[in-house]
């Protein structure tokens, strides 16, 4: 599976550093930024598999706004929001707007990794479904071609068989002559 590319947006330097360290230790390709503006700029230039963003950040672009920017850019990018208060409302609002999940501070990394695994699995499944659809498509087209080819071959063989049967069945001629002609026909085809 390909390494997932994650963007972290959080104004808290401690959380930023912690997320960067733990995520890269676990094999993720991590980029961290300190506010929503910068995150929005980056998202516009680069593709991320997952964006992890704080809900409350200084400046015009908070977590909810960033979520919208991300989803406008690429619907397939998943967003996980981090919320300082255990306020379910804000998190639910984010999820209604398309966030895949939320995490409460302090961040439980076990939980985060579990969610990232799930996201990776879903992405792999989507890719697999696409591959299977394509494979089915090509197989079907090719099988149709194969059947056509076989039908033509079978038709040709049937024609030759009929010819042989006709030659061999001619009672008005001596058997040797019939056999000779049949062999002649076969020989011509082989040559």
């Amino acid at each position: 599976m390909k390494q997932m590319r994650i963007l972290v947006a959080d104004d808290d330097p401690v959380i930023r550093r912690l997320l960067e360290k733990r995520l890269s230790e676990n094999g993720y390709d991590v980029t961290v930024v300190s506010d929503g503006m910068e995150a929005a700029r980056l998202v516009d230039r680069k593709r991320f598999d997952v964006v992890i963003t704080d809900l409350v950040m200084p400046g015009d672009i908070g977590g909810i706004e960033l979520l919208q920017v991300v989803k406008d850019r690429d619907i397939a990018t998943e967003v996980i929001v981090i919320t300082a208060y255990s306020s379910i409302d804000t998190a639910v609002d984010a999820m209604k707007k398309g966030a895949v999940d939320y995490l409460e501070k302090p961040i439980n990394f076990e939980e985060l990794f579990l969610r990232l695994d799930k996201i990776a699995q879903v992405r792999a499944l989507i890719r697999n479904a696409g591959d299977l659809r394509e494979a089915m498509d090509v197989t079907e087209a090719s099988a149709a071609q194969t059947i056509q080819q076989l039908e033509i071959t079978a038709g040709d063989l049937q024609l030759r068989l009929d010819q042989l049967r006709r030659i061999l069945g001619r009672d008005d001629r001596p058997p040797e002559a019939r056999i000779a002609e049949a062999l002649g026909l076969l020989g011509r085809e082989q040559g």
Partner: protein
Amino acid sequence: MLKITPEELKVITRYIHEISGIHLDAGKKYLLETRLSSIAEELGCSNYMELYQKAKRDARRQIQQQIIDAISTNETLFFRDEGPFKLLQYKILPELIDARTPKSSFMKTPIRIWSAASSTGQELYSIAIVIRELVGNDISKFNFKLLGTDISDSAVAQASRGRYNKFEIERGLPRDKLNRYFTLRGGFWQVKDELRAMVHFRKLNLMLPFSGLGKFDIVFCRNVAIYFTMEDRKKLFNKIADILEPDGYLVIGSTESLTGICSRFKPKRHLRSIFYQLQ
């Protein structure tokens, strides 16, 4: 998503054919867009012509590889279509083992098996499982060499790693075999060493000459030629005929046929499956 123009479609499909042999017709516009737009955008290309030019100029061929990885489809099922595996277990392997078992026990004649488009490894590991099931603990008495090749770098890497998620593994692989040959590790199923040690994966473009591959006793070339043109199929099976041992076996996809493609092979039937041998 970046849209592809009819002119770009022509250029890109020709390029893909050139680098991979994969033949895509105009009906594959959507496939190309979904698979290539992220690569194009990632490289800062504003259209597919730019992507094509960048790929052509890239001396390290990384972009070319990215395109191949994106376009090639990966088979993700173990024991996909059980026919060929039954054929292997009840017909091909017993016959080959008889034919290759040497008179003296000092020299073990290798039995070489090739999965020509191994994708992420499921087919070759399935073959390895059939062998283990068939010979059991006598495995050390034989010299099986299993090679898997694929055109996609990322598929080869994943096959070598032998790590599968539950969706990739649970269909097709019964529980007992799963537990016997895989270990659950961090949410993924990892191929056990006994199986991993039997196989080897490397990158190979089937359109290029098969130099250095050696001869094979069994070749699995299922559901790959269907992506090629008729001309390329003919070339491919002709090359396979060259590297197959005189009494070797070729297994192709169950919806495929070599009629009109390669007359050097003769179809043979066993139970409900077909395999091919040299004339």
